[in-house]
């Protein structure tokens, strides 16, 4: 039997709190899970700094990746199998792409990508196609197979239905992370009837569509996305931690560029600071390495770097205040000047954060050909965009809600306000 079709002698299962069990029968999938690059995902949290607010949110991208694989497996094996729109030859490539779609995420991925101007999707493709253990496993299927998987992840694969299973407005990726993030944070939002959605998913020419009788299950899923964003993903305290994380990396980079002599040479970061990153540098970095350096940097001579690291490690985060840019955008300039006058570097200690700084794709039907919306398949076979049939979705997708905050070191300002009148002035201004 060819490697592509080889089955394990006995099915392997992973116990999973969200899907109960994750079933592996294909030899290729089993071998991919065992690779060094896939195992690295155990050391990258799914929700970055959210664990500092919801202490249960320690789950990893490893768990999520297995979850996405399991959802796609169920869609294919129980839903799509035998339907004329589905090409069974695409099964393995779809499963591999589902399992490996997040392979290139770095530590604290969003913050890290922002500081070093990186793209995790490009690294996913580089790992799939480079001199890696994952590539060696995939190449055993066929020499072209790694490229096929990379094309699905990069959304350039010829069969768009396969892409839409892991990357569309209702896909296995979102269905797993909403449920998983809800489970591990312990919130009651984020739950929806996935089994029902899987039952009403239909393969269409270029994407997955939903049988119209399943509209209410999809409404629940859209509501979950909306609530999880405002209650979990955009939680202001979690944002404060991310703000500090970004500032630590910026500070370390600026010091390195200025020739500062670190007590401990930041070897794993050198190529990131110099923009000479190799695939090996990237794969070697995980959250363990970052935490180790943050601990070491707490002892650095540079007062800003050591203070920011102490704040992150010991959860002494910045305070936040509501901010209305429409009326108060000039306030930022005033605060900037006051911070400088008071001897506090605003570059590291005064931060505005907007909802657009943590993009999260709410469901939007959008404009024609802007994005692919969710389509309901009506009994007569015609397709209807979801918000045209659902009042609930129409209400959510038509309304804007934005959020802006100022983050600042309230502890420093409060402790010093008796001795420094500028600190008091800053506090009064920032608190409005």
């Amino acid at each position, binding site marked *: 039997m060819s490697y592509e079709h080889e089955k394990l002698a006995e099915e392997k299962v992973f116990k999973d709190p969200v899907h109960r069990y994750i079933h592996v029968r294909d030899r290729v999938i089993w071998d991919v899970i065992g690779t060094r690059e896939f195992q690295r995902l155990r050391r990258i949290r799914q929700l970055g700094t959210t664990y500092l607010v919801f202490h249960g949110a320690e789950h990893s991208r490893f768990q999520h990746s297995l979850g996405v694989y399991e959802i796609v497996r169920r869609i294919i094996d129980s839903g799509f199998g035998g339907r004329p729109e589905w090409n069974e030859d695409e099964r393995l490539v779809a499963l591999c792409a589902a399992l490996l779609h997040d392979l290139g995420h770095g530590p604290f991925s969003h913050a890290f990508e922002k500081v070093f101007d990186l793209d995790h999707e490009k690294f996913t493709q580089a790992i799939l196609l480079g001199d890696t253990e994952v590539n060696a496993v995939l190449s055993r299927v066929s020499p072209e197979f790694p490229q096929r998987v990379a094309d699905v992840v990069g959304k350039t694969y010829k069969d768009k239905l396969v892409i839409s299973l892991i990357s569309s407005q209702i896909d296995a990726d979102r269905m797993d992370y909403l449920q998983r993030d809800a489970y591990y944070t312990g919130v009651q939002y984020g739950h929806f009837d996935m089994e029902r959605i899987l039952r009403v998913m239909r393969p269409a020419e270029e994407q997955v569509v939903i049988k119209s009788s399943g509209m209410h299950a999809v409404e629940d899923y859209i509501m979950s996305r909306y609530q999880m964003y405002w209650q979990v993903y955009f939680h202001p305290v979690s944002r404060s931690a991310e703000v500090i994380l970004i500032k630590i990396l910026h500070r370390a980079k600026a010091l390195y560029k200025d020739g500062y002599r670190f007590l401990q040479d930041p070897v794993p970061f050198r190529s990131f600071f110099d923009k000479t990153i190799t695939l090996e540098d990237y794969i070697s970095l995980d959250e363990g390495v970052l935490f180790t350096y943050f601990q070491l940097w707490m002892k650095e001579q540079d007062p800003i770097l050591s203070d920011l690291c102490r704040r992150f490690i010991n959860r002494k985060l910045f305070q936040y205040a509501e901010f209305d840019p429409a009326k108060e955008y000039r306030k930022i300039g005033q605060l900037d000047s006051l911070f400088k006058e008071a001897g506090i570097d605003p570059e590291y200690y005064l931060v505005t954060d907007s909802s657009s700084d943590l993009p999260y794709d709410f469901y939007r039907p959008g404009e*024609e050909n802007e994005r692919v919306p969710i389509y309901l398949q009506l009994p007569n076979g015609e397709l209807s965009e979801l918000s045209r049939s659902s009042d609930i979705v129409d209400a959510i997708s038509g309304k804007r809600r934005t959020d802006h905050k100022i983050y600042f070191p309230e502890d420093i300002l409060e402790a010093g306000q008796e001795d420094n009148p500028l600190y008091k002035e800053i506090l009064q201004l920032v608190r409005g």
Partner: protein
Amino acid sequence: MLAEHAKIVQMISLADEVNGRKKLQKMVYILKKMEFSFVEKYELHMYGPYSEELTLRVEELCEMGFLAETCTDKGSYVQYTYQVTEDGLKFSETGDAPVASLAPCISKLNDQSSRFLELVSTLLYFDHLERTEQIEKVRIVKNKLNFSDEEMDAAFAFIAEMSACAVA
């Protein structure tokens, strides 16, 4: 401090108005590829490079009253037009002055159709590949749009023109 918001307002102000969300998305992407300092993160979607960050930023600017959004019902879909308001103009002055070459580049982009900009931006998304591979990728990704060879040539000529304009 809201510097990225100010850049988007400046860009739309220099264009006078932008017709269509898709067009705005592609204009910012192409400007970014021409090394203008926009930071919005883009990903490839079914219709070419798309930035959720930009979508949210534009929503925020409309909420702030710095951009005016008007909707035109086109039957099966709605088209959005963006203009800068008086308050938006004042706000944009808080940002750094744009480089001189930005205005002519925006003007060139705004003169094009969104279909053409979709082609240009998608070719640019694959600009790490050889020309034949770039075309091949676009034909896979945009199989339904049936871009002709002439359109491909025009798009490459436009990219060269934009590159020259950006460094002028």
